């Protein structure tokens, strides 16, 4: 028999109770997902379909109401083995870039010498060595996200959860960061679960795309991406299989959004467009 995959999500549901007279939200319903070692998985789906909830659950920040999440065979606990990168960077404003990157190591009480070496290494890896001693507010958006990435990488996690990490960057910086991320990942593979709203981003980065749908949050489809790597040249976006996959995903998401009564684009039950 094959060994169990490192991350196993089986039949997980989560409902959030809300303040009086508002109905509870089924953020996730019967979600099952396995993540294989060394795969880059992108999680794609309309707003509110439970992507962030699923990430927080795999990190161990929240527990499922029913079903089970196993990471390396155990219920997950937040810690250095599972990195988390957030859309809003979440750098600590009163710490320098160096100390932000070293934050996880200092939580674990790693000794000063080793900590410095590792921080130095990851600062260099993301190209921030020159900015080690400045405070986050002096950095551009792209630099902030690279600092946040270094902070997540410095504990050398086996699983990296990324929640729309590039969503607040402008289009050019975003594409550069995608390339950067793929370079980092190809140098040191790990499981990456990467949430995005961008179909292009989902396709270009992924070994596997997990498509989710809203209300209740669920997995609609899982697609393996067989485009060859590396994918840094622009030609990749002109390949026929890229264009077809992209078109297909677009249509699926559009359908979901238009059939969702609580979305801004709801067009009624019949889809006549």
């Amino acid at each position: 028999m094959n060994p169990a995959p490192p991350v196993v999500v089986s039949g997980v549901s989560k409902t959030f109770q809300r303040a009086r007279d508002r109905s509870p939200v089924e953020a996730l319903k019967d979600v099952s997902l396995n993540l294989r070692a060394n795969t880059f998985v992108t999680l794609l789906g309309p707003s509110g379909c439970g992507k962030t909830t699923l990430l927080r659950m795999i990190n161990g920040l929240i527990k499922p109401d029913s079903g089970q999440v196993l990471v390396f065979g155990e219920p997950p606990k937040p810690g250095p083995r599972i990195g988390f990168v957030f859309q809003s960077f979440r750098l600590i404003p009163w710490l320098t870039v160096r100390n932000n990157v070293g934050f996880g190591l200092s939580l674990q009480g790693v000794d000063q010498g080793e900590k410095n070496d590792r921080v130095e290494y990851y600062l260099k890896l993301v190209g921030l060595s020159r900015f080690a001693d400045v405070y986050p507010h002096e950095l551009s958006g792209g630099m902030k996200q690279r600092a946040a990435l270094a902070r997540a990488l410095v504990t050398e996690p086996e699983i990296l959860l990324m929640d729309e990490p590039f969503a607040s960057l402008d289009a050019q910086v975003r594409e550069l960061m995608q390339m950067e991320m793929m370079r980092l990942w190809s140098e040191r593979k790990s499981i990456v679960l990467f949430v995005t709203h961008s179909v292009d981003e989902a396709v270009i980065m992924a070994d596997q795309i997990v498509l989710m749908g809203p209300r209740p949050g669920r997995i609609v489809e899982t697609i393996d991406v067989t485009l060859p790597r590396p994918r840094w040249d622009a030609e990749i976006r002109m390949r026929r299989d890229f264009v077809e996959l992209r078109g297909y995903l677009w249509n699926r998401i559009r359908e979901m959004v238009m059939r969702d009564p609580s979305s801004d684009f709801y067009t009624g039950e019949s889809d006549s467009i």
Partner: protein
Amino acid sequence: MATGLKASMITVYRLLAFVLFLLLWWVISLVVGENLIPTPLSTLSAAQYLIGDGRIAQPLLSSLGVYCSGYALAVVVGIPIGMLMGGIRDLGRTLDIYVNALMATPRVAFIPLIILFLGLGPEAKIAVVFLGAVIPILIGTYSGILNSDAELIEMARSMGATRSQIYWRIMLPGALSFVVMGLRIGATIGLINTVVAELYTAASGLGGLLALYGNTFQMARYFVVVLALALIGGLVSQGLRMLENWASRWRVTTAGN
């Protein structure tokens, strides 16, 4: 460089404003009459006399003693209690309505009670200053911790931070600017209460001199005391502003680079 130029312009403007203020003072004193509002010059000569005679030194020291003791006590008590109330949620929820009620009560109302317990000496005065300063310091600390950034806390949690690590590394440093704000408000109220205490208990210090000169219409000397109080207030708030700048140094762009 442009900002340096601007800063020196501000200094010039400030001097101009000071000269303008002196002029205005002088004109008013001429219009109202020198026996009600002394001219700047006669105030200056009164100051020279009071300082030279050593008559202001002792009250000044006595006021500063009361003020500093009461304020120091308020810092030493207010910050830790605020930290406890912020760190232990249930304790904070239990106590905060009482603290807020105390904040809203004019604390001068407690002076008769304090006199009853501590008499009219320096202990009572220090208690009045303490009571005025401690509540804003406590509330500043407490609300700073309550206002901590939920996103940063979640980030720290996702990295496996323990509750105490989150408290010491995220919540408390994040509360610093609120603490300093509490310290500033506490310093102002403390100074007010110093004078109030000196007027209401055994008259002494600068407050005592205010009463003495005010009641006997020695207006030039009275003005010297008022200016001395203004000077203390100005120095204290300048010192705390420096503390504030230090506490928020990460917000300010460092030179160079």
